[in-house]
């Protein structure tokens, strides 16, 4: 743990940034259109993410949480509504919003781990080759993978691949780090250790995180604020605080109460 606690740090950051939220989503309606029909993924969803937030989008499948993340990343153009990052509209994908995906094939298999982490820095022209490799090595060290810098992605386990994906995203120092169910394809033990890792990195580096999950427990552990979405199409059901829940306190009455409250909000429509 660092000198200032994560809560204090978040509180300070939030107080400083309350005037202009880092990320604003306004009445966002997203649709997928095919020849035969239109599927509405989200309907007029609004929320604000403040600097230093660990903001979680939580909901059952079909609530449009991944679509929201794709739209914020710039991969999906909104049907209506606006997305503002630092007050400027999001129009296309960019290195200021790096995504960690669920799928392991997000890492180009032809690049060694270190080059994979440096690739984003070089491709986005943030820095030259040497500086990129230096920053990549540093980022690999923070996720404890220095030993595997020369390995190819296919030689790593699933958990290690996700660690590389996180290191790659952190090395780029994005304005907001987007995570799309990053641990859903991992086994339960690896998932738990990566959740801890994300919290540790956040306390260390103080980035802003937007995290998509369908697990109530994960939302409470990882998030500082949770947006609950109802499905078909996704609409905002509630926005809750989740700060102060730690892995050690999973069985605590407060944790269970919040868990049950979310369960009720999601299922007793």
């Amino acid at each position, binding site marked *: 743990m660092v000198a200032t606690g994560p809560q204090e740090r978040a509180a300070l950051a939030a107080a400083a940034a309350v005037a202009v939220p880092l990320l604003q989503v306004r009445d966002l309606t997203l649709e997928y259109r095919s020849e035969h029909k239109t599927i509405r993924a989200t309907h007029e969803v609004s929320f604000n993410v403040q600097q230093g937030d660990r903001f979680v989008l939580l909901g059952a499948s079909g609530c449009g949480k991944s679509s929201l993340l*794709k739209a914020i*990343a*710039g*991969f999906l153009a909104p049907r209506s509504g606006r997305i503002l990052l630092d007050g400027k509209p999001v129009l296309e*994908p*960019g*290195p200021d*919003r*790096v*995504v960690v*995906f669920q*799928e392991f*094939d*997000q*890492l*180009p*298999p*032809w690049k060694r781990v270190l080059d994979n982490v440096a*690739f*984003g820095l070089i*491709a*986005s*022209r943030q820095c030259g080759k040497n500086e990129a490799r230096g920053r990549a090595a540093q980022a690999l060290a923070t996720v404890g993978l220095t030993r595997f810098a020369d390995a*190819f*992605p*296919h*030689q790593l386990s699933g958990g290690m691949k996700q660690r590389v994906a996180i290191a790659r995203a952190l090395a780029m120092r994005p304005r907001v780090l987007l995570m799309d169910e990053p641990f859903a394809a991992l086994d339960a033990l690896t998932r738990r250790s990566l959740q801890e890792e994300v919290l540790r990195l956040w306390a260390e580096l103080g980035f802003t995180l937007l995290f998509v999950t369908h697990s109530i427990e994960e939302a409470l552990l990882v998030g500082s604020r949770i947006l609950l979405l109802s499905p078909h199409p996704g609409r905002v059901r509630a926005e809750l605080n989740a700060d102060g829940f730690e892995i050690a306190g999973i069985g605590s009455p407060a944790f269970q109460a919040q868990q049950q409250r979310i369960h009720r909000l999601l299922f007793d429509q």
Partner: protein
Amino acid sequence: MSHVFTHRPEFERELPPLPALAEPVSLSRARRLWQRDSVRQVVVLVLIAIAWELAARWAGNDLLLPGFLQAAQAWWSDLRNGELLTRTGASLSLLLRGYALGVVLALTLSALAVATRPGRDVLNTLTSLFNPLPAIALLPLALLWFGLGSGSLIFVLVHAVLWPLALSTLSGFQGVPETLRMAGRNYGLRGMRYVLQILVPAALPAILSGLRIGWAFAWRTLIAAELFFGASSGQGGLGWYIFQSRNELLTDRVFAGLATVVMIGWVVERLVFDSVERLTVRRWGMQR
């Protein structure tokens, strides 16, 4: 019905460090050699050569079936007097020119096809038109347009390489995982940089197999084309060497020419394509 568990005590254990692993048993030298594909292939080749020699001795007709040793002798003497080398050189230089042009065209076409919808329509239509057409069937037309000479041969070679390569490259591009595409765009890659840094390496297994098929098509097409002209173009290649030797009833040289065609095909396949694959897609775990 309820089950009654017998009482068993719980226990916890401290784990002592493991003893060192025993050295793996090494195979004998002969067994290790036999494990290698190339060694077994050589053995098969030797058996074929022996069978061929025996069949030739039994037939006893040099004009129809010269023996392996006789053909090997003809091959060796034409190799030493430089005839085979010049012929092979003529064939290969033509082949490389046609192949390179075909590859450039195929990659350009498939890059256009993956980037734009009209490009895809054009490529799909053209490949479905031309892919079933044997390249050699275009030779008469090529002769009409470009006359006797390397122009016509390069035209049919390009045709032999272009369509299969464009087809497999496009399907390789289309098979690039969505996540990898999004990761590339996330880094701000667009246009040609996106194609070269994401799509081409990600589609490399398909591109390499297209290059292999294109090479085999081009090589066959070239030899076939040379069979029916070559003298008039001034310097004939390997196909012409085979055809000429048959005209002069030098059947052992026909076999020597055929063997050279096979050997070059084999060398390119094994040394060039296999090595490229081993150094790229296999190493990256994209292909087993």
